């Protein structure tokens, strides 16, 4: 079992989709032995090892409960599969504060063909972690992007605590339902970062959906963002807007400086991971956040996130 991690990494590099379940089992584990293997796995799919950034498109999809994310994801999944794109979906659910356990309900709400080997869905619990992602989700997204055409990370919330998703995703879409008003308020007050794509669901509701879309577009313009598309979708049959959304996501990715965004993601992610593990004291030992960021910016661009965390830990030890 000693080379389990690198073997899995090699399989992912060869775009072997069936490596996904074992990859997740490993990356989610916190035992020392598994973490060593996980580091080996990530090293195998690092930009240095791949000779380029992982080719998959990492899409973050976030929105409040009840906004219609699951139905939307079912429809998107279908659209992607029609284009013969393989899809990995990492669904992050909140955990029960009381017991630490959680009910991972997303799988039940997403409609897909279980015999379709081009689809992988994994549900994880966020646990007590801040930032909206579960332990291992970011690493998993980076690893799976080597093998899958699309990697979706789905989280619950509207732009307050979900900073992690913006760190790891190439494209972030925020899903809101008409009439809720939250997104509008958050955008205006600057609580919510401007997403790459805004999705208004339930466009079958008619006037209320049309006004929601108009208000959001106006708010974005007043914030100086002319580029962010606002897409209206309806998941009720006959579904509409889904292909437009898939196209908008792809369009964003095309216009993106991918290596710049990924590099920033890995460096920010490494620091977040380090801070999660070692707390404020750890960050202080690095000379503070800014010093750490400056130091990270000087490192080799091809290093994977786990290696960066290791290097930070090495510096703390000195």
């Amino acid at each position, binding site marked *: 079992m000693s080379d389990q991690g690198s073997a899995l990494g090699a399989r992912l590099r060869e775009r072997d989709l069936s490596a*996904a*379940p074992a990859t*997740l*089992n490993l990356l*989610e*584990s*916190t*035992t020392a032995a*598994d973490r060593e293997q996980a580091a080996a796995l990530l090293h195998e799919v690092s930009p240095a090892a791949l000779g380029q950034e992982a080719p998959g498109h990492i899409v973050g999809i976030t929105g409040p409960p009840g906004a219609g994310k699951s139905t939307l994801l079912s429809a998107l999944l279908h659209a992607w599969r029609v284009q013969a794109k393989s899809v990995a979906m990492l669904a992050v659910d909140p955990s*029960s504060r*009381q*017991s*630490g*356990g*959680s*009910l*991972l*309900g997303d*799988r*039940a*709400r997403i*409609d897909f063909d*279980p*015999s379709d080997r081009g689809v*992988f*869905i*994994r*549900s*994880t*619990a966020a*646990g007590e972690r801040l930032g909206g992602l579960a332990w291992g989700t970011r690493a998993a997204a980076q690893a799976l992007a080597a093998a899958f055409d699309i990697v979706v990370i789905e989280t619950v919330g509207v732009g307050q605590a979900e900073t992690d998703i913006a760190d790891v995703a190439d494209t972030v879409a925020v899903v809101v339902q008409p009439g809720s008003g939250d997104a509008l308020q958050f955008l205006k007050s600057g609580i919510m970062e401007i997403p790459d794509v805004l999705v208004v669901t339930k466009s079958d509701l008619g006037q209320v959906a049309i006004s929601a879309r108009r208000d959001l577009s106006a708010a974005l313009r007043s914030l100086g963002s002319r580029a962010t598309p606002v897409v209206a979708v309806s998941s*009720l*049959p006959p579904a509409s807007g889904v292909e437009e959304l898939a196209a908008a996501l792809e369009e964003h990715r095309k216009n993106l400086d991918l290596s710049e965004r990924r590099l920033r993601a890995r460096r920010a992610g490494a620091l977040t991971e380090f801070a999660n593990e070692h707390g404020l004291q750890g960050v202080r030992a690095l000379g503070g956040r800014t010093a750490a960021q400056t130091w990270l910016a000087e490192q080799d661009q091809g290093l994977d996130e786990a290696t960066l965390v290791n290097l930070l830990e090495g510096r703390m030890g000195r």
Partner: protein
Amino acid sequence: MSGEHSPRLPERERPWMMRTYAGHSTAKASNELYRGNLAKGQTGLSVAFDLPTQTGYDPDDELARGEVGKVGVPVSHRGDMATLMEGIPLGEMNTSMTINATAAWLLALYIVAAEDQGVAQEQLQGTTQNDIIKEFLARGTYAFPPAPSMRLIADMIAYTVQHVPKWNPINICSYHLQEAGATPVQEIAYAMSNAIAVLDASRERLGPGADELMGKVFGRISFFVNAGVRFIEEHAKLRAMGMLWEELGRERYGVTDERQLRFRYGVQVNSLGLTEAQPENNVQRIVLETLAVTLGRDARARAIQLPAWNEALGLPRPWDQQWSLRIQQVMAFETDILEYPDIFEGSKVMDALVAELLEGARAEMAVVAEHGGAVQAVPYMKGALVDSHRERLRRIESGEQVVVGQNRYTETEPSPLTDDAEGGILVVDQAVEAEAIEAIRRWRSERDQAAVDAALAELARVARAEDLTAHDNLMLPTIAAARAGATTGEWAQTLREVFGSYRAPTGVGEAAGSAVGDEDLAELRAEVARLQEQLGRRPKILVGKPGLDGHSNGAEQIAVRARDAGMDVVYEGIRLTPSQIAASALQEGVHVIGLSILSGSHRELIPAVIDALHEAGVDVPVVVGGIIPEQDVAPLKQAGVAAVYTPKDFDITRIMRDIVELVGAGIPAAA
């Protein structure tokens, strides 16, 4: 004796209609059963359909595997319906059909079977259950999303009010809500809210001129209720429902005719409270529950069907059902229950109980209205039911609520009732499924295919219609398709293609956590935390329901308790194929799998799941819960099941402890 001040009625009342919920194996076998029951003094029919028929699949569909002829009779086309009703004069019979998502279709088949007998649809009497909201909430045999499901119901109401005037097109069911754990207040409130949704949809569907017809519509809506063993409160519940119903008719729908305003209900008394342990005790439970719906004349049932004493063990045999019919007959013909006016009139206790329930129900109805009505409030109501059921189980586990023979007075002599080879239940011949598959293929090859294709195309066209008019009533092409020889699966598939399919909310996400301070649970959490250290990940369990069985209450409670014990729980709801379960187990990286089956299809489906897991390369323990007869336990274990739980294992925390141990035992020593 009957002078001016006699407390008696001038004449003994006519008894309620007596039915037995029955059907199994084939149309022919069920027809024999019905004729036998009628000969024994049963006065109406109550048809139990199998799950493929209820959810719109033919016997040869992958999803029908293991379910054909199990919990009811398969009826796939007009030929099956004709066989089922052979020799039963449909012009005189009163037939209740437990059918919901596919109710329009089964009514159409019934109408066509009547035509074959020379009976016009105007003469038909009976009920289609047709209550889709409670399927989303509790019973799980839905087929289409909420909006088109409501349209089907409204279309049926509009059709029957004009063309089948003695038919009750819908039975608003509070029965299944109680089975899912509803308190009396919830049962009243959700049933009434449900009725409002149906009546509002009908009013809209009828369009201009609806006001004139609303009295007729209101008068044709009946209820199907439950009665638990707390029979005094249960009786009060029915009085409260009658009062609310009349109020609703007058105030919301402008009904003035006293007859149309009457609260009419049929009942099946409680199955949830029936125990597997000392099952003979269920007989007295059933008798007492029957009192709840017969004692007071002002709120007496119109029709009664009683469960059998052995329902928690498996499917009842004809003899078990006869025993339940005899309970009704003794009650009606030997006791003096039918000789008096309402015996609770003027009772302070009864009036106060009714007032209390009314107050609670009104408040809860207001909450549902705030959610936008019953259709929109399905997730809310589902969560509330899962919560109530969890509380009920907690009370039983802690001993606060006594269940004789289960959590108190458990010492028992061996029961001679379960002594025979089958363990005192009906075992459906496994050959039934293969025969049904062959029969439907033969049917398809012998009919006029062009006529069927044309009829289904017309059905699809009407289903797609927008801005509905009276001409777009789905009953018309449905009856035409039934006449042409289309099958249940074809009818449903045509509509699925237009309407889309649907998965109802599971309710478990909304359920609150267990009470803090539960010591057993705290201990268990510590155990789970230790296991997490060893595994490196939080223990993860997949809870799944293979097959078509929609009775998800047990699975939901397991899922909620596993979460409360600190596990990560993947719960995918109902109607999963073995390959779906295997794919989920693999992708989710679960440590253990819990499967729940209540429909009796475990002998086929559990080994199929285990094969699928092997094929997917998933090697984790599988535990099974449900109505599993004793003699099936050993074969299941041989097939690779680690543990089997039945209704007598009511202590869910203990089950969790077993599961945690199972996972722990699977960790290699080196890890």
